[in-house]
């Protein structure tokens, strides 16, 4: 692919990437998190309607380290983080690779609002590490990282950017199209945007909001139109989790996708997990963001096509 000469810009990006990873590790160590490593090859995944897996023998390559990290919370860990490779079949685009790097972190005795604060600290640390002073430029926009970040509910975002309610969008089966075409490109252009309170059916592993049962405590972080992270106040009620997993399985079955048995050991351990919050953060995209790269290809060592 490179005919012997690796692109100089890519090489520079990889050096910056190492610097950013170092800054993130320092951020977590300053905040008393422990770095953990969990198996990447697992027997059973969490049932998710829209994530397809890559088999590894009779097991699968994990699409996220969620199962094992929550089991560590059940084992008594309070603040943990992990950088790891994750695999999702047939996901390839300017922002997607079938093998990518995820950062996940979890806090016990916390809800998703603490994770919003973590995100602010972490993104600032990543930008500072490569010499950016409180602002990021992305595709012509200057985005301020200092000051308060926008908190926008999904309900409000649908009204504001699409003139339609999220409920109607779900009923008409247009939720994803509207999100991708009308909403996402508007998010996080002046300051980062925390898009929060998703309809419950779009937060399978998230706790329902107290006093507002139709939304889940889930947020996604957007900066410069780029989706960076997905977070939950974790659902720790094993029975409710089982019911929601069955709904995801039913969707997969109706769509003709592979249906895996439920991860019973995870469900058993879930009843020992204290109230917690957890987040999955796309590291490749964070590097893209601070380096103002257009394609994920520019921030990884090799893409599948180059192998």
């Amino acid at each position, binding site marked *: 692919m490179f005919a012997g000469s690796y692109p100089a810009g890519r090489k520079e990006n990889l050096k910056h990437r190492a610097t950013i990873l170092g800054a993130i590790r320092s951020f977590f160590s300053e905040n008393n998190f422990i770095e953990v490593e969990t198996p990447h090859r697992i027997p059973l995944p969490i049932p*998710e*309607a*829209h994530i397809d897996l890559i088999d590894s023998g009779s097991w699968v390559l994990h699409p996220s380290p969620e199962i094992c990290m929550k089991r560590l919370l059940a084992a008594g860990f309070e603040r943990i983080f992990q950088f790891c490779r994750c695999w999702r079949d*047939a*996901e*390839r*685009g*300017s*922002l*997607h690779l079938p093998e990518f790097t995820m950062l996940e972190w979890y806090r016990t005795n916390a809800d998703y609002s603490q994770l919003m604060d973590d995100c602010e600290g972490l993104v600032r640390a990543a930008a500072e590490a490569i010499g950016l002073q409180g602002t990021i430029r992305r595709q012509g926009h200057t985005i301020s990282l200092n000051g308060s970040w926008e908190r926008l509910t999904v309900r409000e975002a649908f009204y504001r950017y699409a003139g339609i309610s999220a409920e109607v969008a779900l009923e008409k089966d247009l*939720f*994803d*199209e509207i*999100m*991708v*075409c009308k909403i*996402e490109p508007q998010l996080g252009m002046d300051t980062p945007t925390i898009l929060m309170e998703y309809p419950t059916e*779009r*937060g*399978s592993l998230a706790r329902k909001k107290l006093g507002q049962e139709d939304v889940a405590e889930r947020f*996604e972080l957007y900066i410069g139109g780029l*989706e960076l992270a*997905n977070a939950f106040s974790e659902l720790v009620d094993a029975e409710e989790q089982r019911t929601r997993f069955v709904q995801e399985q039913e969707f997969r079955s109706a769509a003709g996708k592979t249906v895996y048995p439920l991860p019973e050991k995870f469900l058993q351990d879930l009843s020992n997990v204290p109230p917690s919050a957890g987040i999955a953060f796309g590291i490749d995209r964070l590097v893209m963001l601070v380096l103002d790269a257009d394609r994920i290809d520019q921030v990884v060592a090799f893409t599948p096509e180059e192998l």
Partner: protein
Amino acid sequence: MYSVADLRKGLKITLDGDPFIVIAFDFVKPGKGQALYRTKMRNMINGTILDRTYRSGETFEPAFLEERTMQYLYKEDNHYCFMDNQNFEQLSISEDAIGDAKNFLIDNIEAEILLFKDKPIGVSLPNFVNLRVTQTDPWLKGDTTGSDSKPATIETGYVLRVPPFIEEGELITIDTRTGEYSTRVKG
């Protein structure tokens, strides 16, 4: 039949009866949502740009386009008549489908005609053609306006900017892609 997995730049598909060419394409997936394929396509007949989003499992009809080399014969009303020199078949093309090429059609010129379902939808000419200047004002020596070009009308009625030294009756070369003057034909 194409599937979303076949989508790529340059793919030609039929949509609502018209041929489209894919000019941009990306795989997208909102968090926890389904895979979507965002495409930007150009209508090959009228040039309209269309944005469409597809889901996995959707399929497309390919657009079969044919290209034929034909010779320009003459213009009749608003139609331009071409002939295939292999089989002497004649084809009449409307002014709309000809587009800007009409400005550079001289008798007997060879053109590539793009056909969709046997209907001509586009004409491409050689990149450079020679056409005669039928009207242009003489260059006045000592002109102090500082202008380095002047208007000229060519035999097809098309008007373009030419250097001041070009005179009426001269043959010039025009770049058909930009419609601009290229050089003077000597002799």
